[in-house]
């Protein structure tokens, strides 16, 4: 199944390298997409007053082609296929539609992320979901990246080249 035809945000924002500002929705969808299922479940359980919803698209598992750029700024190439689960829901009270794509095969994870995407679009819910879910997930992800960078940094070797003075 080919998921990459279904884009939530306009092409202009998402096609090139992530150099400009991301819209708020892109940012929180990205955090949810890369979040850990168990971690999101834990934060979800800590929320109260969650609304009812119906499924527009039941969680389904598929593949997307992940692409990278050599050195972060070269030509794009296909890195490999990754498993992604997607879901779309509509909140019953307000009719807001939420979409989610998450890495992995966890269907409940995808459904929770879709409901949170819908809630985050509602002005009176944004602040508490940002604080209760998105910020903790984003902080945890940043910590994990920093730890990995430190570990990798510890293995870095500084080469010094000694030129033989011929003259």
């Amino acid at each position, binding site marked *: 199944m080919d998921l990459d035809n279904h884009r939530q945000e306009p092409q202009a924002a998402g096609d090139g390298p992530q150099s400009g500002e991301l819209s708020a929705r892109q940012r929180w969808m990205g955090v949810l997409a890369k979040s850990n299922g168990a971690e999101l479940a834990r934060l979800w359980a800590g929320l109260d007053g969650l609304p009812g919803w119906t499924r*527009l698209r039941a969680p389904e598992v598929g593949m997307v082609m992940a692409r990278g750029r050599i050195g972060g700024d070269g030509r794009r190439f296909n890195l490999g296929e990754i498993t992604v689960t997607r879901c779309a829901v*509509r909140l019953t009270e307000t009719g807001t*539609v939420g979409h989610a794509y998450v890495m992995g095969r966890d269907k409940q994870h995808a459904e929770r992320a879709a409901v949170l995407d819908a809630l985050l679009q509602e002005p009176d819910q944004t602040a508490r979901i940002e604080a209760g879910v998105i910020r903790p997930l984003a902080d945890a992800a940043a910590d994990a990246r920093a730890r990995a960078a430190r570990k990798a940094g510890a293995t870095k070797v500084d080469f010094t080249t000694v030129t033989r003075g011929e003259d």
Partner: protein
Amino acid sequence: MQATSDASAESDGLLPGFDDPVQGAQQAFRAILQAMARPGTVQSCGAELSVPAPLGEAMAAVCLTLADADAPLWLSSPLRTAPVERYLKFQCNAPLHDAPNAASFALADAAGMPRLNDLASGDDRYPDRSATLLVEVPSLTDDGGWTLRGPGIETTARLAVEGLPSDFAEQWRQNGELFPQGVDVVFTCGARLAALPRTTRLEG
């Protein structure tokens, strides 16, 4: 889990597809297959779906089951509403084309159906690369109307379809002369459908 019927759902076309995508598509496929295999029989299909008007349930079920990113769709103008287009794009991911001859599935109301020879009829190496015409008709029954003969029909079958252009039988006769090329037709009426594969001959 119930289908929503509030205003926002109606207006943006984002309605759920099959409750169980696998079962729903399998059952719809079976209905379409039976209709094609036994021309003249009327099958029920898609009754569980909530669909944006004026798309019918059986026509939507055919699209959900068979249309995908490789199967372009064409919609006749009464069907070309924003909710219907959004529904088909969201559920099927099928591209929508302006010209009927580029479509794998042409969705039409009975009065506005394209001429059969305006649709893709395949080529001599790939006669299956032809279009399937899905026509929503006001009335569809298997008593009275045409007499059908051909593969899948032991002697004869009957099919009464209302609302079609007056020269449909003549168009169909010419379509039959193109065999193995040609188009196939699925008539839908709400949550029921019947099919005419290109090998079926109509009389009366």
